[in-house]
């Protein structure tokens, strides 16, 4: 463990009882349980999966596709609520998460569980109605994987938690593709692979400069368990694999020359930042912060490029 890790009592966020009474929980507290920022990323990646499926020749009535997208988003939010129910104890001791509604005392744990459970069931049922049972089953599996496999089992057990658990965050484009086409072709799994390989460098970069938070909570993140050097090497390995997987959509016709240029440039810069991180001074948190921030830009850029190319394919018959 790094000598710079601050796990002293002074670094702890105030105990909920010492922070004063929490404001009464209005709808916004329940909305916060859904992790809106994560939901927005899920909506975006799922929307790209849907548009790619249309571009590949599949068809679902646009109204049904919109309802399906809503169901996928609600399913992702439900996973977040169940995660906050289960992780309330560790959220309370991490500065990054101490103000979430459950550790703050705004929403009782059983209510968070009921809210998340009810939304999970409704989202899966709605997706079954609006698209097909394959997509609904995949959404149910995604929620199961995130809550049971990642939150309840892996997160507190192994430093590989976010590597395996990342599968849950990578599934939304596949669910969305299945919703439109009733199928899960290789192209959908390429989108899955990009998010899956993106997850470790994204979260390990965060863990490198939030190490004290995770150590206090007893979460075995890679920097706490294997040290900074090993984490930085792992980040570089995954960054190279990510940059290569970013080119794969071209091989299946999901992206053309514009996409290829974006993928090469953005992937190359991702690897450069990973190399910078590997060479940086151990106590310098700047490169990790920079890589974390860029990783979000990278994922958005890659999926936006797929979206643009597929929209051009869909618009071509109307233009010519």
């Amino acid at each position: 463990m790094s000598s710079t890790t601050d796990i002293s009592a002074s670094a702890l966020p105030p105990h909920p009882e010492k922070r004063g009474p929490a404001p009464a929980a209005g709808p916004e507290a329940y909305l916060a349980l859904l992790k809106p920022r994560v939901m927005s990323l899920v909506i975006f990646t799922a929307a790209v999966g849907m548009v790619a499926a249309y571009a590949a020749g599949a068809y679902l009535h646009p109204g049904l596709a919109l309802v399906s997208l809503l169901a996928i988003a609600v399913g992702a939010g439900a996973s977040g609520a169940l995660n906050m129910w289960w992780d309330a104890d560790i959220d309370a001791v991490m500065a990054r998460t101490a103000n979430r509604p459950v550790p703050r005392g705004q929403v009782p744990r059983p209510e968070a569980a009921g809210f998340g459970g009810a939304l999970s069931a409704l989202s899966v049922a709605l997706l079954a109605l609006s698209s097909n049972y394959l997509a609904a089953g995949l959404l149910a599996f995604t929620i199961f994987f995130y809550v049971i496999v990642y939150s309840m089992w892996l997160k507190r057990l192994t430093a590989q938690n976010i590597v395996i658990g990342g599968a849950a965050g990578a599934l939304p484009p596949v669910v969305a593709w299945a919703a439109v086409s009733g199928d899960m072709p290789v192209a959908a799994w390429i989108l899955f692979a990009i998010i899956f390989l993106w997850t470790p460098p994204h979260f390990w970069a965060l863990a490198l400069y939030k190490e004290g938070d995770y150590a206090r909570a007893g979460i075995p993140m890679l920097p706490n368990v294997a040290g900074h050097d090993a984490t930085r090497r792992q980040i570089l390995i995954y960054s190279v694999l990510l940059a290569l997987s970013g080119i794969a959509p071209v091989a299946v016709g999901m992206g053309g020359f514009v996409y290829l240029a974006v993928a090469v440039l953005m992937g190359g810069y991702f690897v450069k930042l990973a190399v910078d991180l590997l060479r940086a001074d151990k106590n310098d948190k700047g490169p990790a912060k920079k890589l974390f921030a860029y990783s979000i830009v990278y994922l958005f850029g890659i999926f936006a490029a797929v979206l643009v190319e597929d929209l051009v394919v869909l618009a071509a018959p109307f233009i010519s």
Partner: protein
Amino acid sequence: MTPEDQKARNQRNLAIAGSVVLFIVLVYGVTVLRISAAAG
């Protein structure tokens, strides 16, 4: 219960009612679309 608690509870109740109505409308709309697609 303080006035703030009461206000928050009223807002929660309204949000739940709105969500239930939205869900019913969505299920109705999806059903109509699917029947139309099957008939067409």
